């Protein structure tokens, strides 16, 4: 048997290698430091994959897909009129970060989350930063997601950003990580982080033995701990619920996943009722008081009495119960003012102003179209820039200049002139790439990626599970990683050491 094993069929010369035609294409490649030379922290996984027969890889990929399908980890596409369920594409090649890079990212995110939370306390409180003229008052007050109703209301323990998802990209030119945007309202995707890891450990168990990958499975427990600490009456066993818009929401799987992992109730608006500023849920034994709500419904749909009166998703009277201090909400109401894409440009300034520190992670250079000089520049360089609507997320309301046609550019030129406050522009960042499986060719190919770590804030410290969600633009050449636009995801490994 020993002799046979030496001439393993995986090494036979006529067999195709998954990396046979791999081209780093002049981008920063997460896996390779130069063509054919893997970076030290990718050494083991490269060895595993490059000696694996393509059929074997294809088989594992099939098993992984099947596992997602059977678990119902799907999102629903309504554009075809039938509500087809699709898998969120999962790429089996992990994205690996060495420890020193992660430590740097963690320092940067911690600082950023602290500053953003202080900014929200300030804006809905004394507004010192406006008085000190560090950011233009009209810019802040004109944010679509600024909630005047929240001024003067102290959320429990002063926490606004219990959960934030901060999008990072690595610029191919410098190899450095930049913050692309902050998501402080109801960031989603953390369930994919946890499920991707589960599927990876089943698909490539050996790889986890070789590499010392930092664990991430404690996320739900950390989140639950924070939610418990928010209980208004401080009792030992608060009633915590996850509030979902319901089964038709694209992130529904995540809502039920988190409720199940935390062992708390998943409720819809219709399960709750407010009486005398107290929130109750309807059970088979009558009404039960609710203390803490992890809500995954946007501000404007939360309470038809306070915000949009046509919303059936939320709970009438909820905001008044919140104001009365009878129920805690995570995240706080009004966070959208801090993740507005125009406000984003000032976050480095917040870090200096509130913390007296220099930002560890830099922002991408940003043109505010509300400023006439910037607007003029943007209008003259639309073909080279990315233009984004400030209040949107999920890759909607966006122009990517270099790949847009004349009509799209003209349309945005009009939008920009009509409503400059609503737009910002940034240079196109040549995102780093990571080897990813290309089903069309049956081989590995470089695809652009980003990284969204999930940061929890307990009022004192910021807790970040190592890694986060790596999103990958699976279309060749594409820079858009959003799942609604053909993106997929990868498992993200942070190694205990540097290799």
């Amino acid at each position, binding site marked *: 048997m020993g002799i046979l094993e030496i001439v393993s069929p995986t090494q036979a010369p006529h067999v195709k290698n998954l990396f046979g035609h791999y081209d780093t294409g002049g981008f920063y490649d997460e896996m390779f430091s130069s063509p054919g030379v893997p970076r030290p922290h990718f050494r083991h996984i490269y060895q595993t994959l490059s000696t694996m027969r393509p059929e074997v890889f294809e088989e594992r990929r099939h098993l992984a897909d099947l596992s997602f*399908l*059977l*678990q*119902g980890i799907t999102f629903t596409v309504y554009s075809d009129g039938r509500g087809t369920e699709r898998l969120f594409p999962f790429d089996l090649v992990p994205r690996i970060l060495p420890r020193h890079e992660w430590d740097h990212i963690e320092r940067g995110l911690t600082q950023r989350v602290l500053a953003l939370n202080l900014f929200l306390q300030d804006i809905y409180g004394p507004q010192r930063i406006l008085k000190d003229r560090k950011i233009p008052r009209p810019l802040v007050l004109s944010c679509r997601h600024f909630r005047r109703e929240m001024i003067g209301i102290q959320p429990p323990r002063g926490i606004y950003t219990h959960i934030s998802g901060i999008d990072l990209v690595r610029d191919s030119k410098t190899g450095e990580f930049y913050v692309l945007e902050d998501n402080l309202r109801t960031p989603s995707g953390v369930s994919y982080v946890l499920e991707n890891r589960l599927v990876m450990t089943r698909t490539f168990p050996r790889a986890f033995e070789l590499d010392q990958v930092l664990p991430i499975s404690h996320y739900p427990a950390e989140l639950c701990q924070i939610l418990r600490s928010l209980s208004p009456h401080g009792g030992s066993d608060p009633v915590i619920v996850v509030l979902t818009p*319901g*089964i038709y929401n694209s992130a*529904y799987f995540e809502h*039920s*996943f988190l*409720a*199940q992992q935390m062992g708390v*109730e*998943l*409720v*819809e608006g*219709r*399960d709750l*009722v407010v*009486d005398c500023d107290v929130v*109750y*849920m*309807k*059970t*088979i*034994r009558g*009404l*039960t008081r609710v203390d803490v709500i992890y809500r995954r419904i946007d501000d404007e749909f939360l309470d038809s009495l306070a915000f949009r009166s046509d919303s059936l998703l939320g709970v009438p009277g909820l905001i008044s119960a919140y104001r009365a201090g009878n129920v805690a909400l995570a995240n706080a109401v009004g966070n959208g003012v801090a993740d507005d894409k125009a406000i984003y440009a000032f976050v480095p300034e917040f870090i200096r102003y509130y913390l007296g520190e220099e930002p560890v992670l830099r922002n991408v250079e940003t043109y505010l179209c509300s400023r006439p000089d910037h607007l003029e520049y943007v209008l003259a360089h639309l073909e080279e820039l990315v233009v984004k609507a400030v209040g949107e997320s999920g890759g909607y309301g966006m122009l990517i200049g270099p790949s847009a046609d004349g009509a799209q550019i003209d349309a945005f030129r009009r939008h920009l002139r009509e409503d400059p406050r609503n737009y910002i522009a940034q240079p196109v960042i040549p995102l780093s790439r990571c080897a990813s499986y290309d089903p069309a060719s049956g081989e590995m190919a470089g695809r652009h990626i980003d990284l969204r770590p999930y940061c929890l804030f307990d009022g004192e410290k910021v807790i970040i599970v190592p890694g986060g969600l790596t999103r990958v633009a699976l279309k060749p050449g594409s820079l858009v990683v959003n799942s609604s636009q053909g993106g997929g995801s990868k498992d993200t490994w942070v190694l205990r050491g540097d290799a």
Partner: protein
Amino acid sequence: MMLSRIADSLFWIARYMERAEDTARILDVNYHMVLESYQSYRLRWHPLIIITGEQELFFQHYQEATAPAVIEFLGFRPDNPDSIVQCVSKARENARTIRDRISREMWEDINGLYHQVLAFRMDDEIAAGPHRFCNAIKFGCHRFHGVSDATLPHDEGWQFLQAGRSLERAEMTARIVDVEYHNLVEHPESPAPPDNHQWMAVLKSVAAYEVYRRQYHTQIEPEKVAELLMLSPHHPRSIRFSVAALQSSLRAISGTGAHAYANEGERLTGKLHDSLTYSRISEIFERGLHAYLTDVQKTCRAIGGQIAHTYFYYSAAA
């Protein structure tokens, strides 16, 4: 504390699964009986539509109850709310809304069944006969209950599942006996006496054929079939058995002891169970089988309404 919506979903998951299974059973058995029989097909396919209570809808789409039409209608049609595919889809949709509250195994099982059912091509099943399809449903439903029993805590949620299944089964068996007796005994379309095959089919459709053979050792007699399917305390698909199971689930939910009731649903269930326990089949025939079974079905619907009223719904004022 169990949310009303979750109890409601569990109750309906079980009802839809039971409905899918029962429909698959009558479809499968009937198909095979028609293959063996020389009677005209119309005679045998039409009652299936009556049993499921969707005559009006059926004849909006079809002229005649032929085998392909009935298989399509009861098995696959998306606009028939009681078609097997619709029942499985709705059961799975309900499970999806409460997947955090059922076991992962249950969810993966029912989700797997859903994808399996969607993969059947209707035209193939009509051409080849619905046996493969019906069998998949039958065993899918059995497996679902097995997985539930083995992985879900046997608390009130599990009791709501049991209650849904028992109520649906009691009502379905009542309808099967009612329609078949009416067709085969009281108003036969052909003057010849109905042959054994048809009663065998009825028994098989509720998995009672072997039981009948063992219990009665006689030719198949319609009264005895009715007795077995309505009054047997042991056959798991008899009306009495199902109502007893329903009663025990409802008592477990409310914590009521024997000889008492906590709400209107329990009172109706207890009354029905007493009638099924202490009536002789001969007495039921004297009073009229059809009238009796009509009452059973009405009571089942009332019990369903009372369960919803007690546990699921809140008035707008709360």
